Every structure is written in C-alpha cells, then in structure tokens.
C-alpha cells in the first residue's frame, strides 16, 4: 500500500492492526480500576466513606487524566512506525513500542496508587496488621461445583475432526486439540479455589465466589471453542486463499479477545454492583500483601497461584521461589521481544543453499537443515515451476521457506528460496519427501546435474 511518498508493507499493516488497539485496551482496564469493587479502588482497600472523600476523588480524577494522555501519546508514537519498510527493523521497533505500551500506562497507576495508600494511612482507614489473614469458615462457600469436563469434550472432538479431511496439516490440528485440553486443565487446576471475601456477609461472599468461578469457566470454555473453530478456519480457507485465511484468523482472534474482555468487564461490573454498599463496618483489608496493588507477595501463603483482587484473572505469589522464577522468566521473555526482529532479519537475509558430497545432498540455511543420503533416494524431479506450498510447521518468510509443508506430492520437508527457481524434489526409500532449492539458480542447476550423474553410477 502506498500513501503519497510513503510505503506501508503488508506485514507492517498486519502488525499495526494486531497491536494498535493495545493502549486503548489497557486504558479501559486501568480506568475501570478507579471504580470501587470489593471496597477496592486502584488496588487500595477503602471504607465506604472514602468513596465521597474529596481527596480520594481528586486522586482518581488525576489518574484518569494522566492515563488518557499516556494512551494518546503511546498510540501517536505508533503511527510513524507503520512506514518502516524493512521487515526485521519494523518487527524490532514494534516490539519495543509494545513494551512501552505495556509499561507506560502503569507509571501513573503506580504513582496514584501510592498517593491513595498514603492517604489511607493518614486517615486511619487501615483495617488489619500485615501479618493477619481473614478467612471464611462457612462450608457453604466452598461447595460450588465445577463444570463437567464433558462440556470441553465437544470442542475437543471438533478440533480433531479436520484431521479426517486434511492429513497435511494434521500436526496443527493436533496442537489445537492439545490447546483445548489445556483449556480444561487451566480451568480446573490453574484457579486458586479461594472465597471472594469482602466482609462478614456469607451470602455476599458466596455470590461473589460463584460469579468469579463462573466467569473463569466461561473464559476457558470460550478459549477451547476458539481453538476448535480455528482448526476449521485453517482447514477450509488455507487451500482457498492464504490471505483470506490470515484475515479470518486475525478477525476471529479479535472477536475472541473482545469476548474475553467482555467477560472480564461484566465480572467487574457485578463485583461493583454487589459491593456498592460494603465497607461501612468491618471489611477485609489485604493491601499489605499487594506490591503497587498489582504484585502479590505473602510469605505466609504457601500457594503459588493467586486470584487477582478484581475481575477474573490470576497471578502468582512472589514470595514463593517458583513465583519469582515464573515472573522472572516472563520479564526476560518480554525484554527479549525486540530481538525477535533482529533474529527475523538474520533469518531472512541468510541465503538458502544446497551442497552435494560423495555421500549425501545437504540443504543449508542457518546451519545444516536436512541431509539426505544419496543411496536412499528413490525418485528425483526437477521442479521448474513454483509449486503450491502450504505451511504446516516451519518458517515462511520473504526469502526463505523451511520446515514441514504441504506440497503437490504430499507432506514434505522443504528448504527453498521462494523467489528463486528451480527446486529439486526428492523421495527416499523410507517414504520421506524433500524439496530443496538454492538462492542462486545456477547452484541448484549445477547440483541437479551432478546428482543425475551420481545417481546413475
């Protein structure tokens, strides 16, 4: 696409479409934190009287203003990033932007959270010492039933169904099915089975606990259906048009993301409505366990998984070694994101090669990709026209296609430069298929000629 003298690559446009809504998404979530739910506003437990307090209202209003400014700024910074033409550079810039987009909105959040916490101390609104914990002793709160695993069986069966019609992408369908199974596992075992305690009202605790558990189940069930439908989209559309399949997957992913956001916001709304009158007498205050209102640290809690204080999500206990490792690994992964572009650049700019030795034909890219012994080759073909290739597991970039692909001959291991023909197609005595091509046309032709001679011997 060309806008005046600027050029926007398709990949850049796709990346832009995938991430541009993130600041707005985060602004919606963080703005919602200012509403009182379970006596909490911006991660600080406050009594009923604080809701009308002028200073509290001023802090919340100031946060909303700063959040809006941060969101607009981060979104505006993204606009010039669209015009970077080089794929690897664009990816690096986008990933750096993504990191900023995730961190910057939390700067006003943390500063205002601290102000609110300080005000709470000054007003004497703190309820309990940092070493105490309040728990509900009524058995009724803990008797909420889990959804039957059978409910997850339907999307599981559906996600496996495409294998019957399309064997070439069986691996992808199996991964989708494994994800459906993971959804059930996550629903059942990645949830901290804890009462949603606000005060000594058992009925309220039971209602809040039930709502949270139900929403948690809905999120994972939606995720399971998402994976099942994704398998069908892949099966139906990739044969027809890669672009249409990509667009449909992106659009469907957006529907899923906004669907889960809806569940989160609906849960928060219910928490807000049900606890609108709370905080007048006794109320549970666990602020001391939450660093900046976001990170849970409680050495007296021996569980790793912790429910977030509002909404549906879960987090980890940073007082546990496993929690620290998990959070550390997440942080390292996030910080490594910009290097994805550098790696992509290297991958895309490394030429694909074919080498012929006395024993084998070797396909190279960043290293030795495939090595086929000459005595195992049973069939060979010179491919002069570009065949239709469908990726099942591997890399598909501007200058390289490698990995497992569907080909006109069946599923094959390939390593070719999509811009340079010819290719060499091979079949071996163990039934395996290969498609190799060099980034230099002359090299492929030379290897093919030598291969004919060697195989004739």
């Amino acid at each position, binding site marked *: 696409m060309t806008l005046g003298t600027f050029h926007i690559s398709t990949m850049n446009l796709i990346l832009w479409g995938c991430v541009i809504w993130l600041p707005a998404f985060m602004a919606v979530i963080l703005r919602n934190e200012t509403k009182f739910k379970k006596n909490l506003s911006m991660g600080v437990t406050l009594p009923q009287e604080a809701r009308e307090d002028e200073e509290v209202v001023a802090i919340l209003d100031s946060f909303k203003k700063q959040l809006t400014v941060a969101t607009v700024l981060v979104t505006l910074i993204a606009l010039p990033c669209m015009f970077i033409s080089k794929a690897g550079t664009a990816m690096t810039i986008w990933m750096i932007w993504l990191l900023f987009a995730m961190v910057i909105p939390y700067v006003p959040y943390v500063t205002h959270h601290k102000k609110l916490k300080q005000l709470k101390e000054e007003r004497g609104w703190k309820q309990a010492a940092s070493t105490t914990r309040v728990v*509900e002793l009524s*058995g009724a709160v*803990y008797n909420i039933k889990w959804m039957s695993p059978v409910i997850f069986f339907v999307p599981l069966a559906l996600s496996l169904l495409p294998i019957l019609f399309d064997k070439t992408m069986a691996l992808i369908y199996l991964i989708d099915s494994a994800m459906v199974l993971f959804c059930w596992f996550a629903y059942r075992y990645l949830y901290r089975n804890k009462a949603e305690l606000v005060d000594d009202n058992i009925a309220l605790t039971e209602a809040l606990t039930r709502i949270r558990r139900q929403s948690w189940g809905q999120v994972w069930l939606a995720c399971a259906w998402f994976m099942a439908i994704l398998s069908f989209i892949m099966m139906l559309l990739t044969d027809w048009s890669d672009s249409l399949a990509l667009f449909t997957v992106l659009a469907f992913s957006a529907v899923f993301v906004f669907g889960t956001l809806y569940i989160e916001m609906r849960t928060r709304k219910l928490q807000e409505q049900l606890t609108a009158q709370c905080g007048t007498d006794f109320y549970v205050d666990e602020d001391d366990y939450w660093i900046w209102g976001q990170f849970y640290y409680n050495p007296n809690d021996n569980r790793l998984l912790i429910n977030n204080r509002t909404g549906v999500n879960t987090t980890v206990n940073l007082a546990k070694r496993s929690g620290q490792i998990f959070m550390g690994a997440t942080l390292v992964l996030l910080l490594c994101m910009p290097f994805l572009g550098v790696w992509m650049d290297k991958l895309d700019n490394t030429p694909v090669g074919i080498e012929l030795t006395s024993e084998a034909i070797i396909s190279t890219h960043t290293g030795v990709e495939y090595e086929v012994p000459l005595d195992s080759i049973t069939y060979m073909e010179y491919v002069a026209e570009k065949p239709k290739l469908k990726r099942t597991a591997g890399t598909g970039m501007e200058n390289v296609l490698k990995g497992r692909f569907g080909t006109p001959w069946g599923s094959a291991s390939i390593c070719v430069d999509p811009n340079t023909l010819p290719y060499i197609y091979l079949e071996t005595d163990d039934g395996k298929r290969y498609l190799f091509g060099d980034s230099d046309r002359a090299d492929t032709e030379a290897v093919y000629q030598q291969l004919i001679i060697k195989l004739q011997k």
Partner: protein
Amino acid sequence: MLLHLDFASDVPIYLQIRNQVVLGIAEGKLQTGEKLPTIRALSEECGINMMTVSKAYQLLKQEGYIQTDRRSGAVVCHNIAQSGPQQETLKALKLHLSELRLAGLSLDDTLALCKTLYEEEAL
C-alpha cells in the same frame, strides 16, 4: 463466621483455628450441624499446609466440638456438656486463677470478673 489468623502470633496456627472455632460455638456464631470447610478447602483458603488444618480438626474432634465424616466433611457437634470440661481446660483455669490471686484479686473480685466475662461470651 470469619477466622482471623495471625501469622506473627506465638500461638500456632492450628491452635488459633481450634480456639476460634470453640469461641464461635460458644458465641453462637457456629451452630450445631453447621458444615465447616473440608481440610483441603480450608488449607487452600488460608494458604497453609493441609496438615495444619488436619491437626486443628483432629483436636476439635477429640474435644467433641466437631464430627468428621468422609462424605460430609467436618460438622459442628457440640456435645461437650455431656462429657464435662476437659482436663486441659481445668489445668489452664487453675493456672489463670493462681495468676489472678498473685495479682491481688480476692475470691469475690475473681468471681465477679469471671461472671462479667462469662456473660460477655454468652451475648
């Protein structure tokens, strides 16, 4: 009924659970026949070891405050009146009475104090 556990206290957590259940029964916050959470549920809720909760429940069971059943879990069952106070309770009472005497309280003062506390408990 809410349990308030103090992790900085010298009183072990299992004993805090036991004491608060006993107080809850005495104050009428826990009724006979009322279900308590299972050991697993309560340990998950408190973020403590299952053995700690199990120890508290065992103690409460031994003292006759609760009954445990594999199917229905722990149920409040207050039949202590039939068996009379525990030896441990009598020992503790004797010690506290000695402390009050050493603190200078007469028999009448002690009885008046006990009466006030007993009535507060019954409210």
